[in-house]
């Protein structure tokens, strides 16, 4: 089943359309990097597709009930909020809420999902640590573990790599790519073209309210598109480690 499908999708803010005529379908096993300059509508696209903003056209996710949606998609907003000094284990357990009936305690399946999520984010030793006392990068990993514990076929993340050190950026992208290899769909908005080129199976570039390009990284990151959309020139090369995209200067 295709979780993420937008048909003739449009989002208006006030009188003008921020996004229009969007047709986008993401299948299982795809790791989609959502690119675009600031204000291109990456966050708007994801939030509206989730039914959190008024929109026109059809979104498969928005059409679901809130409870069904929570079992189909895990959403990681850009703001990394942890409101209370709860333990890492308690925080990751929140990801299991959509799978629990009212008043039901987490069972074996839930504990297994929580353990797997903690292990995949390298948080085994962090279980009893207080989440609000961790560093920014550690908090980001805890929140990603929460989304993984939700164990949904689709994972959507808004700039998950922002504010992480290089090792953790690479580790995060490895994790997301691995989730896609396991058969999940992953959609992440990214600003780092290098990370996007290297890890994503498919790039979607938003520009001027529409999709400017959609395809495998080497087909999307052309000198023409980089100059037109991002106003940069970059060195793009196929290597044995995958495609490399290194911005060189402003056009």
């Amino acid at each position, binding site marked *: 089943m295709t979780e993420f499908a937008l048909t003739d999708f449009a989002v208006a803010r006030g009188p003008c359309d921020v996004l229009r005529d969007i047709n986008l379908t993401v299948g299982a096993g795809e790791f989609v990097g959502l690119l675009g300059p600031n204000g291109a509508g990456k966050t708007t696209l994801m939030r509206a597709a*989730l039914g959190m903003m008024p929109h026109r056209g059809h979104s498969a996710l928005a059409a679901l009930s*809130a409870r069904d949606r*929570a079992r189909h998609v895990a959403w990681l907003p850009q*703001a990394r909020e942890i409101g209370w000094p*709860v333990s890492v284990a308690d925080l990751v357990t929140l990801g299991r*809420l959509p799978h629990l009936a009212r008043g039901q305690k987490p069972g074996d399946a839930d504990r297994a999902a929580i353990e797997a999520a903690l292990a995949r984010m390298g948080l085994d030793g962090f279980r009893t640590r207080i989440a609000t006392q961790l560093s920014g990068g550690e908090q980001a990993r805890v*929140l990603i573990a929460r989304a993984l514990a939700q164990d949904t076929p689709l994972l959507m993340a808004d700039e998950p790599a922002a504010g992480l050190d290089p090792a953790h950026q690479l580790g995060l992208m490895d994790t997301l790519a691995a989730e896609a290899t396991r058969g999940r769909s992953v959609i992440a908005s990214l600003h780092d073209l290098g990370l996007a080129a290297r890890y994503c199976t498919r790039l979607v570039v938003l520009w001027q309210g529409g999709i400017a390009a959609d395809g495998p990284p080497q087909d999307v990151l052309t000198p023409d598109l980089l100059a037109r959309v991002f106003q940069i020139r970059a060195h793009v090369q196929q290597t044995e480690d995958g495609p490399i995209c290194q911005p060189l200067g402003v056009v």
Partner: protein
Amino acid sequence: MTRALALVLVALIVALFALSLLIGPAGLSPATSLAALIRGEGLAETLVMREIRLPRAILAAIIGAALGLAGAAMQGYLRNPLAEPGLLGVSGSAALGAVIALQTGFAAQFALGLPFAALIGAVLAVGLIIALAGPRGGALTLILAGIAVSALAGAFTALVLNLSPNPFAASEIMFWMMGSLADRSMTHVWLAAPFIVLGAVVLLAQGRAFDALTLGEDSAASLGVNLSRLRLMLVLAVASMVGAATAVAGAVGFVGLVVPHILRPFVRARPSSLLWASALGGAVLVLAADIAVRVVLPDRDLKLGVLTAIVGAPLFLHLVFKTRGQAL
């Protein structure tokens, strides 16, 4: 640990409730008191126990529970340890209703005139808040609406005091606003209890939503929480509980702020557990405070709201101090 906490709090409530029944100016021995309460031995003693001390103890417990629970819910919804039930402006508006009833003489017309007027004030405040904050707004619009309603109620209360015909009327109003459980009857219990129980049932059912809100509004929504519905439930339930509590006891401050703050470390900071813990803790605090006002200055009619403020303000300072320490 949470089970131990629940046991301790329940044991404290039982002990303080019993103590509250045994203390009073009538100076009855514990044996006489219990005989009068349970078997109805002695006309005067039975009257004292069943019509004065029992309603007072019950009101202390349910009003404390209402304020503690409402405070924990407000803090959970706003993800702010400085939030308190009065933030919605409902207690201020209920006080305004009561003050108008005292001023116009409506309170003297029949026994429940004052609490009814206070409840009407609370209902009007809820309508105003919901109209101001709109159906889809977030937490911020709710706070702003609450502050606006609070300010309005405060201004009108000041106006009523300003225009009061004589110093006696003004002082009657002032004393009522300090909050007290003295001389309340079972009628007051029957008036307040339904609103408080209803609000408590609604709020305790929202535990999961408050837990999910730890991650912020967007994440909570993606976990299946209906934020608009949660906000409406919160406003109605808090208003119902705080409006009823203010209507029968006047303004009892700091309970809703301090109790969740003290108990948070004992429930591993989980907002859902904090709800029931704060309800029990609020009952403990108000029962203890209401015993204290009778023991500390038995002849001077020390007001309950004054005592909770005197105890609560230093705890609040401690909270500020601790927050400052964390920021450094």
